[in-house]
């Protein structure tokens, strides 16, 4: 197990190093940020000063060496635009995105499980078929357009909910959150629903397949024979068993939810990390782009690493076949 652990962590570190190189070299090959930052009337001397201040006058390999050295010391550079550490900017926006992603995750479970179980109990009925059709739509329709239509319906036509932005925050354990106030919740509803729909369609499919399988098992037949009410069979016995794959998949999908929040945050002008990324791409704020991408890379690598290690701990076959290969 220790050998497997060391090799797997080594692979993860290698992935981060490779991605850091690719990300840095590609982002620093783009455009000239001085053109965007400088006053339009600036002459060549002023432009050169700005470039020198940002360290852009140095050759690429020196910039890269400096980036690696600083990154190893936990510094991913200063934003060109805000003149603040890029990591600090991202950390400021992170609670908003995490709140959005977590609420969306919960929503996708609360929407997906009941619909999936229902469709699994009545796979051939009209309601079961419509749920499956709905889940195909949720999978394939462009998410941003669904968001726009929700804005049109609930914010513009009905005027029930705000069309964007983040509500007033209250501080809990040092983190600014919005879900404790009614106004904050109102702001959170539409973006969280939009972000949740895609994952909810996934949960519907998992729950439906799980329910169909579970209903044929002996323990369900036995519970029926014992005279337990159908409601209790579904709510206690079936639900417990279908939660295992659902939780596994959703844990894996949390990372992609944070990444997909880029789109949702843009639609709803929600001040999270994704909006920061899009704005930074527009302003060629290289350190912020690189810092965001490195953060995402680390999140994904860590999630994959943890999942692999848990699997290896639970199932000896995983680490044994790796050794043979």
């Amino acid at each position, binding site marked *: 197990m220790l050998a497997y652990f060391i090799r797997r962590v080594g692979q993860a570190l290698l992935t981060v190093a490779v991605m850091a190189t690719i990300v840095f070299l590609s982002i620093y090959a*783009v455009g000239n940020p001085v053109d965007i930052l400088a006053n339009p009337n600036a002459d060549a001397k002023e432009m050169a000063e700005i470039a020198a201040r940002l360290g852009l006058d140095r050759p690429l390999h020196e910039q890269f060496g400096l980036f690696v050295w600083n990154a190893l010391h936990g510094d991913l550079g200063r934003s060109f635009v805000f003149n603040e550490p890029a990591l600090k900017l991202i950390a400021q926006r992170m609670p908003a995105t995490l709140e959005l992603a977590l609420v969306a995750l919960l929503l996708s479970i609360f929407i997906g499980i009941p619909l999936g179980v229902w469709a699994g109990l009545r796979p051939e009925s009209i309601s079961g078929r419509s749920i499956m059709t709905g889940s195909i739509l949720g999978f394939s329709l462009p998410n*941003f357009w669904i968001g726009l239509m929700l804005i*049109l319906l609930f914010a*513009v036509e009905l005027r029930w909910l705000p069309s964007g932005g983040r509500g007033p925050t209250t501080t809990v354990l040092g983190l600014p959150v919005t879900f404790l106030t009614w106004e904050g919740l109102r702001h959170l509803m539409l973006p969280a629903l939009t972000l949740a729909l895609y994952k909810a369609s996934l949960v519907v499919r998992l729950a439906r397949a799980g329910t169909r399988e579970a209903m044929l098992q002996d323990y369900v037949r036995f519970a029926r024979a014992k005279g337990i009410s159908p409601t209790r069979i579904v709510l206690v016995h079936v639900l417990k068993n279908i939660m295992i794959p659902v939780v596994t998949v959703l844990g894996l999908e949390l990372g992609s939810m944070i990444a997909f929040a880029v789109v949702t945050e*843009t639609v709803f002008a929600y001040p999270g990390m994704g909006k920061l990324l899009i704005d930074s*791409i527009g302003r060629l704020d290289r350190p912020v782009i690189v810092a965001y*991408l490195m953060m995402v890379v680390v999140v994904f690598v860590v999630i994959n690493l943890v999942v692999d290690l848990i699997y290896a701990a639970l199932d000896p076959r995983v680490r044994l076949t790796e050794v043979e290969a």
Partner: protein
Amino acid sequence: MTALPEPAIRTPAAVDKGESLLRRRFSEFFESTGAAFGLALLILLLGAAIFAPWIAPQNPYDLAQLDIMDGRLAPGAKGLDGRTFHLGTDEQGRDMLSAILYGLRISLFVGVVSTVAACSIGAAVGVLAAYKGGRVENLVMRAVDLQLSFPAILIALVLLAVFGRGIDKVIIALVVVQWAYYARTVRGSALVERGRDYIEAARCLALPKSRIVFRHLLPNCLPPLIVVATVQVAHAIALEATLSFLGVGVPVTEPSLGMLIKNGYDYLMSGKYWISTYPGIALVIAIVAINIVGDRLRDVLNPRLSK
């Protein structure tokens, strides 16, 4: 001695059977009314996209045909020159119906071209990996795993931030994020096919390796590939629309449906719904039609379900 009946039970009949297999799949496809409807819809959309310059009421990118005074007219309103704008106009007085037809052309073009390119590259890489095995296979599959562990939207976003806008650049980005799906799909079926007798026979005939891989192995891996590719066209179109909405996709001069939706986004809050909604509906119809056809193809081409 009486002549034995000829043992050629399978020769001519088998050829016939090969032909009728395709025909049977074809008629199986149309057994579902939904699928037939989806295919008809898809053909209609393709026709509308291809013939857009001839059927659109105006050329939306010819500035001489636009009148800014016609800007932001509601659907069904009459313009200054007395013609009716059935789907309204955008802020520059462009007929939305014409803009949607031209946008559909760009969206479908990007989706189909990027899928065909990604499919060819991915299939070639995947089948080679499966045939060669060993170090080549390991390297390719590691790259595939690494890429598929990151969300496609993010990879495409970064690539386009690096490349800049442009239809060609969007296509390249979509190919880069999609080839891995095909490589994985083809490798999966090629690993099964590799052990079959006909490959062994081809090897015994000492055919060149490239011929075995591309003429014998690859064609037999095609059915699952066709299914994945059909559904991926819809994904590619949705992804392109999303990227264009985020402002990193197609240029303003060649707007796809996603770009049209982005343009209408600014007017959504003031209740001018048609600039965003109608291009979105066109996009949704295209994606749903492709998905219905893809779904049916999966059922028809799946050997486990065939009769």
